[in-house]
């Protein structure tokens, strides 16, 4: 069963279209990722799906309710952790949990159980009296998640939950998201970090308010790039880059640290061309090999080819 069904959702701010005719479906218990650069329209889409922003046109069914006509019913069935995320820094851990438990109207038995759970997932048992503002970022984010789902919603929206925390905390956070999904909660999560896409069952890539790619990681890597990627290890890299560009080899040439990626159409084998171009020069060529495209490659390619058209 689909937990969310989005149909031609559009949001205009004056003359500016922030979300343009977006449609997709999210299955129950899925971890669904929104990828996209700053200003792509991720937050705007999420706010419409949460019932706090009215769509300009189109609609979406969230937990079976229309965000356009029944935003209050939608709100009752979801949890939301906003991008600015959203605990009261001047309250203690325990007061924050009590407040959100209170506004969701939890009765006391369920509340105590959920409070215990929220403290547990944030690793804050015994630290209930700590002022929230004094907690490290990663722990605060886990607590924010705990309060956002204190009422056990069937769907939860997380807007850039992992921005600005260290990699270890990010990893722990994703384990938590996994745990929620295992409890059959649908998780919609936005992120800037492409490597986090690997944790998602399904993804959409947004740019300028439009979906430019969708699928799971495997599909994204294979369906959108009809190209081969060559990774060149060499020295000096900059000079290599210049020579390859002068010789117009492949479609795109990108530098990644001390390696260079050349993207070329699948049909022509350019390995020899690369070797020949570099052999006559003063370059130490360590290796040239075909590699699996990364999501980075796919996205760079998609965004560049979109900009060209």
């Amino acid at each position, binding site marked *: 069963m689909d937990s969310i069904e989005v149909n031609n959702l559009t949001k205009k701010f004056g003359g500016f279209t922030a979300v343009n005719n977006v449609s997709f479906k999210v299955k129950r218990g899925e971890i669904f990722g929104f990828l996209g650069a700053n200003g792509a329209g991720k937050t705007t889409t999420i706010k419409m799906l949460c019932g*706090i*922003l009215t769509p300009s046109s189109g609609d979406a069914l969230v937990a079976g309710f229309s965000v356009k006509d029944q935003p209050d019913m939608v*709100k009752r069935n979801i949890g*939301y952790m906003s991008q600015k995320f959203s605990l*009261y820094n001047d309250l203690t851990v325990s*007061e924050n949990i009590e407040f*959100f438990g209170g*506004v969701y*109207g939890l009765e006391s038995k369920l509340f105590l159980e959920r409070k215990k759970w929220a403290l547990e997932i944030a690793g804050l048992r015994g630290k209930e009296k700590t002022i929230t503002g004094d907690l490290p970022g990663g722990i605060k984010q886990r607590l924010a998640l705990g309060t956002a789902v204190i009422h056990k919603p069937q769907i939860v929206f997380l807007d850039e939950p992992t921005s600005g925390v260290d990699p270890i905390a990010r990893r722990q956070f994703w384990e938590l998201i996994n745990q929620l999904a295992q409890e059959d909660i649908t998780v919609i999560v936005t992120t800037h970090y492409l490597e986090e896409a690997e944790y998602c069952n399904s993804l959409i890539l947004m740019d300028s308010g439009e979906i430019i790619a969708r699928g799971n990681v495997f599909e994204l890597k294979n369906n959108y790039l009809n190209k081969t990627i060559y990774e060149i290890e060499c020295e000096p890299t900059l000079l290599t880059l210049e020579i390859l560009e002068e010789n117009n080899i492949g479609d795109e040439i990108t530098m990644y640290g001390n390696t260079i990626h050349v993207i070329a159409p699948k049909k022509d084998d350019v390995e020899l061309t690369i070797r020949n171009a570099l052999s006559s020069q003063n370059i130490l060529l360590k290796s040239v090999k075909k590699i699996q495209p990364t999501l980075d490659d796919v996205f760079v390619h998609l965004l560049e080819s979109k900009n060209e058209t």
Partner: protein
Amino acid sequence: MKLNKMRAVAKKEFKQLLRDKRLLFVIFFFPILLLVVFGYAINFDVQHVKLAVLDRDHSPESRLLLEKLNATVYFDVVKTLDSPSEIDEAINRKIAQAVMVIPPDFSKNVNTPLKDAKLQFVIDGIDGNTATIIKNYVDTFTELYSARLNAKFLNRLGKVITPTISVTPLFEFNPDLRSTVFLLPGLIAMILIVTASVTVALSFVREKEHGTEEQLRVSSLNSIELIIGKSLPFILVSVINAAMVLLAGYLLFGVAVKGSLLLLALAVLIFVIASTALGILVSVISDSQQVAFQLASLISMLPSLILSGFIFPIESMPKIIQLFTNLTPATFFIKAIRAIILKGVGLQNFWPQLVYLSLFPIILFGLSSAITKRKMDRA
């Protein structure tokens, strides 16, 4: 509307307030500051009124009168005039604020029992406030003076009476003349409207700034639960504030509430709700705490200072400005609590003020929700 949700919001807001030492300081320091400034520093009592005298009697009695008058702190005889034609000039050129004319038959009448001795006063009416005060001084003085004369007559006739009034210092008979008494109701109004609207506006905008507002909007909390829950602690604080100011007014300036405390509490409550609604309107149009603070203090303070009748009597304003005085709830509140505190009269004398006052929250809430709605569709 669910009570327990509202309670959760109120509880949280109260805890935040108790932890916000800076805001608490402002809430409780501001009234004290205003009390001191208006109670002590700004002295609205008029003293040393410049008085010119046209003595057409030139008798020992008239000289005695002048001497007595000059001996008070309230009048300084600055000039002696020689003819009635000089009266206008003395006033117009601001040489004197008032002119006293002692008629030629003054001493004769003073010494004739049962005959009234008349004095004529010409008062500069340009500043209505001061003119009223001078007139009151004059009335009090002449009343007192004639009481003394009466006592003297009776003495001469061989009877001894102890004058009951002359032993008390001059002008204490007319407590309404003391400006602190006049100012206190306005002071309460200003303290309440400023603290309530500023604190409420700040508290709502802070939720916006910190992103917690969005969190509240996705929760199933409706706006009535949110507004009442969030405002409750501030309403409570404001009522405490009002009680404090009244107590201070009594202890420092001897102003006691003549009328019903219950009615006073009712008026305060309606006014505080109106002030809260003003704060909410400000929070709806401001996006940062800084803007909210400035806007709230401006639109709460200025009208209640200038237009409400707090300092400048509404009756002496131009007709068109009088119309504008209806824009601030403080106008109605001040009228109502002056009636309660100073006159001690019953509800029948000021219920229209309370009705007008109750319209403010309704209008302000309506306006706020209309603006919010428009914003939500646009943004």
